[in-house]
């Protein structure tokens, strides 16, 4: 058991570390090399949504479950920050961390209920729960500002950095990119951990794993919570960058977009949803200049990818590298 748990070889290797360091430097490099604020801002947004989609992808990869309601976890920390900040009870940094923890905890509790339901019914439930959060965001006007949204009255310094670091595209690109790299590392290490392997085994055959003497409900709920936590980290960056949150942030169409990014990129490797998010944003930008039929284009792309290239960009990449097959291909599609 211990010996083969990583499929042979160390989890953290020197080439792996170099690759990771190289990846982490891409964002800061782009921030300095790309002069256009417009493109910097596009990159920053894409990075935030890449973190969002990464969370969705973790759930697909580890649990084999598709969520149509992750926007709830994206928007929730933003609302927590916006609602608790004016009370002045604790330092803003603590509120941010508390918002993340609260989101993960809520996801865990919700997960305990809904991961019992399998397959497509799970997707329908996440949709319903996401819409419940949306309804709450529009109705609880005192806390959330209703349809008008909530402006976040952020302090002038956060984590020792001036607030404008988080609100100018150039510097925020560096911050978001580093968080993205961190989250990718978390996703990668989780996938290689004993726990991650257990969750994959449950994904493939839950009954057999239960037969081996493992409890399966809590691991699946914990994976759900981790995926929500990663998405919530994206939500915090979104809140800092825009200093504003509205019900649109938690609407199911946002969940749908993140899911599309994860599917386009392919969820069988952690980097798939990230690549999917960047593709989505740049495609949208490129297409937006000559047609208004973005919905059809993304609908057709989704259909083509699910039917013809179920492994998404990850699959395409693997095909280009001869003799190298994707390990642990998540069975979506």
């Amino acid at each position, binding site marked *: 058991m211990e010996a083969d748990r990583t499929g042979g070889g160390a989890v953290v290797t020197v080439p792996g570390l170099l690759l990771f360091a190289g990846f982490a430097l891409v964002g800061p490099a782009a921030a300095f090399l790309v002069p256009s604020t417009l493109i910097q801002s596009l990159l920053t947004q894409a990075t935030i949504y890449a973190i969002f989609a990464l969370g969705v992808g973790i759930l697909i990869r580890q649990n084999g479950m598709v969520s149509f309601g992750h926007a709830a976890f994206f928007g929730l920390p933003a609302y927590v920050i916006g609602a608790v900040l004016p009370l002045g009870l604790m330092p803003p940094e603590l509120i941010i961390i508390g918002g993340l923890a609260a989101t993960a905890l809520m996801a865990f509790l919700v997960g305990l209920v809904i991961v019992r339901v399998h397959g497509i*019914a799970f997707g329908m439930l996440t949709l319903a729960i996401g819409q419940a959060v949306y*309804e709450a965001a529009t109705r609880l006007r005192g806390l959330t500002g209703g349809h008008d949204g909530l402006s976040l009255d952020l302090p002038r310094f956060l984590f020792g950095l001036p607030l404008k670091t988080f609100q100018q595209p150039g510097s925020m690109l560096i911050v978001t990119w580093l968080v993205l790299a961190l989250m990718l590392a978390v996703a990668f290490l989780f996938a290689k951990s004993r726990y991650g392997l257990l969750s994959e085994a449950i994904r493939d055959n839950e009954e057999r794993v239960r037969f081996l003497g493992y409890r399966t409900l809590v691991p699946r709920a914990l994976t759900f919570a981790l995926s929500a936590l990663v998405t919530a980290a994206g939500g915090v960056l979104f809140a800092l960058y825009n200093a504003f949150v509205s019900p649109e942030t938690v609407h199911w169409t946002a969940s*749908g977009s993140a899911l599309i990014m994860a599917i386009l990129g392919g969820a069988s490797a952690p980097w798939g949803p990230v690549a999917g998010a960047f593709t989505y944003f740049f495609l949208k930008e490129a297409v937006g200049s000559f047609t208004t039929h973005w919905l059809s284009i993304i609908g057709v792309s989704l259909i083509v990818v699910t039917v013809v290239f179920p492994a998404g960009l990850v699959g395409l990449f693997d095909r280009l590298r001869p003799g190298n097959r994707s390990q642990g291909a998540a069975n979506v599609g």
Partner: protein
Amino acid sequence: MAIQVLNGLVYGALLFALASGLALMFGLRRIVNFAHGALYMLGAYVGYTASLQFGFWAGLAVAGLVLAALGVVLDKAVFRPLQHRDPLTTLLVTFGLALIAEDLVLSVWGNDTMSFAEPQQLAHTLSLFETTFPIYRLAIVGFGAAVAIGLVLWLRFSRVGLFVRAASHDPVIAAVQGVDTDRVSALVVAVSAALAGMSGVVAAPLMSLAPSMGADILVDSFIVVVVGGLGSLGGAFITAMLLGQINVLGVVFMPELTSLLPFLLMIGILLWKPTGLAGARL
């Protein structure tokens, strides 16, 4: 109070007409049609355009026929080729179709909400329980009841209904016994799509036309089929009625929480019975 119960029946009837199609399709093909809300929306818009020319009833009939034809195409072009793939594939493909349908409606009819007049014959009110109640709403309850009774009679007593039940129970055995499951499936998807489209027309005078109308009611009908037990018509019926009542009684007793009640109901029931009220096999 009694009026509120009636209003609950109106929404419950609409939900059932929509959810019954979802339940039938799940029973037969083990798929969830994410585009069901889009069919409802398309039906409403098609019916609207036809009714401008020929009146409400023709609009209702045209919506039913067009959507039935669309249902056959959907089954032959999408569900049948994908029947041996993971059900998630079909879910995602229908999600893509829903996006395309929304774009289509936006391009043809625009983003403005439009109002759809009820038929003149039903544009009256009735004195009921010391107040007045629009007859059209009663007609919607009648529509829901007709759908429920019609489906039960069709499934219980017709030869095709027997085939549908057999194929939902076990498609392979049914096929071995000589049931043409592909034709049965095309028929069921056509009926479901027609019901969705006609529900759209029936609901339009009440809720006005907007490209988002499909997505809103889709969430509620998903709750209905999951809580009722996937694939179960009886479960869907009970849950739709329950949800209808919860919606209006919530407005009376706890207006702040109304829109959350269906979700709380769903979580409560799933904690108690993870497979839903009717305990369908998943």
